[in-house]
């Protein structure tokens, strides 16, 4: 727990010293304006909730991939990773602590866009199913944390990490059903969305804003959890491999 807390506070210090790392909190309301205007122009003000949900996911994903995904690599670039590995506190707990801070910042984006939508755009965004909403939000943060951890490890191993991180966002938004409902995607692509936890999560969050009952909420919640857990298992295996290989080859720090 010490490592987690230290990592959490370290990332808070980064945010305090460098507020530019919080840029998604600035862009989220702008995306809310865009999506709200599109929906209003199309005569679908009843879908205002979508205009809040989408920027929230986009912010969360941004934190997960552009901050969290690079958290191990930046330790290598700074030359701090050798010290971190040789410290008494577990390396993984520090990294998870740092990523968790980012996820909190991402969760704040929801509060921000909800308030912005309600009081600036005068959009009606009512949470009709608060328990489902709360559970899906928590599980989404869990799954996003583990996915971010998985990517942080993957980026250490991959030579094309920069290209991937720069180009992966919009495909993920599509496969997660964040920008376009999954039902509108080509039929052959729709099964692929099942392995993207965002697709289950987005359906739940959107559903919790609607007045109608949510079908299969329990199953959807379980899917978010299972996919998050799968990412955690993969991330743990990768991290163990990376640290072991680094100790064997001496290639932990970049010189």
């Amino acid at each position, binding site marked *: 727990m*010490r*490592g987690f807390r230290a990592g959490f506070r370290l990332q808070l210090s980064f945010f305090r010293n460098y507020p530019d790392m919080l840029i998604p909190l600035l862009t989220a309301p702008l995306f809310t304006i865009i999506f709200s205007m599109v929906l209003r122009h199309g005569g679908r003000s009843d879908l205002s909730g979508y205009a809040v949900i989408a920027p929230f996911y986009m912010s969360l994903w941004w934190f997960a991939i552009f901050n969290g995904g690079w958290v191990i690599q930046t330790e290598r670039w700074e*030359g701090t990773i*050798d*010290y971190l590995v*040789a410290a008494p*506190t577990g390396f993984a707990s520090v990294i998870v602590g740092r990523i968790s801070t980012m996820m909190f910042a991402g969760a704040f984006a929801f509060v921000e866009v909800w308030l912005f939508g309600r009081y600036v755009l005068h959009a009606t965004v009512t949470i009709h199913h608060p328990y489902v909403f709360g559970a899906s939000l928590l599980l989404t943060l869990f799954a996003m944390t583990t996915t971010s951890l998985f990517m942080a490890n993957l980026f250490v191993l991959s030579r094309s990490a920069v290209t991937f991180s720069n180009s992966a966002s919009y495909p993920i938004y599509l496969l997660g059903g964040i920008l376009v409902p999954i039902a509108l995607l080509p039929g052959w692509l729709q099964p692929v969305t099942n392995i993207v936890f965002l697709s289950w999560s987005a359906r739940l969050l959107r559903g919790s804003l609607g007045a109608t009952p949510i079908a299969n909420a329990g199953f959807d919640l379980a899917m978010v959890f299972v996919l998050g857990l799968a990412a955690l298992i993969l991330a743990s295996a990768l991290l163990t491999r990376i640290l072991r290989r680094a100790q064997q080859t001496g290639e*932990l720090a970049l010189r």
Partner: protein
Amino acid sequence: MSRVAPAVTAVDLVRTFQPRKQPLVTALDAVNLSVDQGEVHGLLGPNGAGKTTLVKILTTVLLPTSGRAEICGHDVVRDAKAVRPMIGIVFGGERGLYTRLTARQNLEYWASLYRLPGSQIKPRAAGLLERVGLAEKADARVETYSRGMKQRLHLARGLIAGAKVLFLDEPTAGMDPLAAREFRNLITEIRSEGTTILLATHDMVEAEVLCDRVTLIDRGRILATESPRSLGRLVSRFQRIDVDGADRELLDRVAALPGVESIAPGTEGHRIHVDGDEHVSIVLKVIVEGGVVGVRTSRPSLEEVYVGLIGDRGLQV
């Protein structure tokens, strides 16, 4: 009677690396080393000698290929969790700090990682910043620091948890002479508190000034372990007497004395090589009675030993 375990032990330690499409590199070749608790021990060798590899194995960052190493009796591979709280590390260079954070933020973070109780973290960090002379700049971002200041912060980080064994890997590399001198003064203070220090360096002055014993290492093999003073015997068994202003007649008389091996012109006067300490006093007596007042005895400097044992390779590594 229980025996206190050495602070650092290495037994037949081997470390090889396999670069892609290149022959196997042996960075450490059956290294044996023992450093007593409270000792300041120098690891002296040229670039690529294996100093950093040895330090990285001892600090649990790297695994040995074979052999074993212990810190205060704990195996660095099997018992790494017990080793880590006992060691402080200062790798040389400017990297290894969060440059976007302040010195205080850096130290408080590392104090947490070394499991200092919450109430002790702030005072400990403040005390160390004061001690290394960074108190006034404690809240400035590290990216604004000079190299010397960064090295002092590295040292403060190494001391944050009250390490039993402190590893310093070329800590003054790239520092200007004044900053390096200040840094050495700090090390001298720390040694007086009983901390064991393993200092990897290729700076002869540093090793001579700071170390109780020095291990010369080259191409992964240990050449010798002695006190800096005793190491001179490895390249010369002679005592040396430097004399200024001795005339030819006196030098001829000295040359005939027992134990005098040779007399050679030096930079200012002459250097007399005497075999055996028992002959030195007679030679000195004859010189002084001959009216010479500029007399000095000396042993080979560590630099001479270094060049003598390792060889002058110029820029080769």
